[in-house]
């Protein structure tokens, strides 16, 4: 395609085919898709982009792409449902499991500038993520959490708002669903949050369910803000533990880590956080185990403050004697 002459339009996006996941495309192997150049502005970076629209099987609602290809490539997500292309999980889940940091700016001109720059860099390259260096423990966790079959319930029509009020006059010809709308936490989702991976209710649900199943249910005592690490490699020092802990939690700042108590004899450590919420995030991220100095360490919640010190000293006493 010839380069765009108008400097204002040079930042706008054109593409030939959308980046989509299996579920969004639907069950029918034959699809008729319409393409509209510069149909809408991207949901995350607000630049005009090519909109694709298709019917994902009968009984479906005609899905369309909502974010541009550049934004999809940066996060490696589907252009319509904003879920990861490999695992089908929300961005937040994948990022916490793999310890990836979100660098994309979220406001105004910043994000347009960022998107434009990334477009140049990613040209031709398939994804913006380097998945090579991330922990295999994280990948295992994601594989466990991911679905195996496509989930076509996502493609159903939206709930008929007139039906909810009792006023739907279209009756059987109404293409929207005549059901009661679910009114739970999952009903308040927002595109920007889901894309950037913060404050996503679905992600929260997935991760807390997983953490509970791994025996890492947050204890009822809200004062407990520490996690207990076991089977550390003998070569670890407090410093190496601290480094690994912070590296695997990119969203946590070093100041939020109150202290690390390392007991070399029993090869375990206590990681104390300042805030309970940070501790819970850490538990969720490490639900499948954390890697320190090449060894997988076990994670458990610490006990209430009164019990912590005696536990460390008694176990130290036991191994000494």
């Amino acid at each position, binding site marked *: 395609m010839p380069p765009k002459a108008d400097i204002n339009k040079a930042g706008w996006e054109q593409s030939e085919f959308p980046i989509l996941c299996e579920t969004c495309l639907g069950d029918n192997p034959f699809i008729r898709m319409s393409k509209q150049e510069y149909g809408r502005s991207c949901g995350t970076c607000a630049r005009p982009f090519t909109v694709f629209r298709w019917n994902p099987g009968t009984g479906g609602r005609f899905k369309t792409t909502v974010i541009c290809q550049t934004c999809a490539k940066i996060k490696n997500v589907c252009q319509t449902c904003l879920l990861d292309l490999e695992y089908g999980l929300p961005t937040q889940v994948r990022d916490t499991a793999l310890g990836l940091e979100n660098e994309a700016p979220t406001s105004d001109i910043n994000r347009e500038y960022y998107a434009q720059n990334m477009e140049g860099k990613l040209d031709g390259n398939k994804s913006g993520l380097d998945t090579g260096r991330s922990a295999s423990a994280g990948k295992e966790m994601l594989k466990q959490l991911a679905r195996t079959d496509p989930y076509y319930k996502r493609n159903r029509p939206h709930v008929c708002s007139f039906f909810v009020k009792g006023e739907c006059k*279209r009756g059987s010809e109404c293409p929207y669903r005549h059901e009661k709308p679910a009114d739970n936490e999952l009903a308040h989702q927002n595109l920007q949050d889901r894309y950037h991976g913060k404050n996503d209710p679905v992600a929260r649900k997935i991760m807390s369910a997983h953490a509970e199943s791994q025996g890492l249910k947050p204890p009822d005592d809200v004062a407990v803000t520490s996690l207990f690490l076991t089977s550390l490699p003998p070569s670890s020092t407090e410093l190496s533990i601290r480094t690994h802990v912070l590296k695997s939690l990119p969203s946590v700042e070093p100041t939020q880590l109150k202290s690390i108590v390392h007991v070399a004899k029993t090869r375990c450590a206590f990681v104390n956080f300042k805030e309970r919420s940070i501790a819970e995030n850490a538990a969720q991220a490490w639900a499948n185990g954390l890697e320190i100095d090449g060894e997988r360490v076990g994670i458990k919640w610490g006990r209430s403050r009164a019990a912590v010190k005696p536990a460390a000293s008694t176990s130290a006493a036991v191994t000494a004697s």
Partner: protein
Amino acid sequence: MPKIRTTRTKIPEGYDAISDILDEYAKKMRDAENESHEGKRKAESLWPIMRISHARSRYIYELYYKREAISRELYDWLLKEGYADANLIAKWKKSGYEKLCCLRCIQTRDMNYQGSTCICRVPKAQVRSGTVVECVHCGCRGCSSDS
């Protein structure tokens, strides 16, 4: 648009016999135009207009072509004055389009995909599932010749 007779030429004979019915159609059209838009979709508000226009054209078409109750002169005059849609009647003369609802539904340029027509043109036998079809342009429920 103008049903107001601005012609200075004479009205052909035979007009008085049908003028009552034509006036009724005019009244119905007025009512449809003045209806409130409450409780209706944006497209739905236009459906009665399209329906009455179809009905009126149908009446004149049948008078001339089927019942042969009016003269050629009167028929041409009615078309000229805008009492019936000449283009729509031209379609009715073709095989397969005898019951066509409106001209928008066969206009392929208006459709999303290249060369397609409105869903109301599909025979009921071939639209599977039990869904009722109400086309978005004119509210038609199926205007193919065999359903």
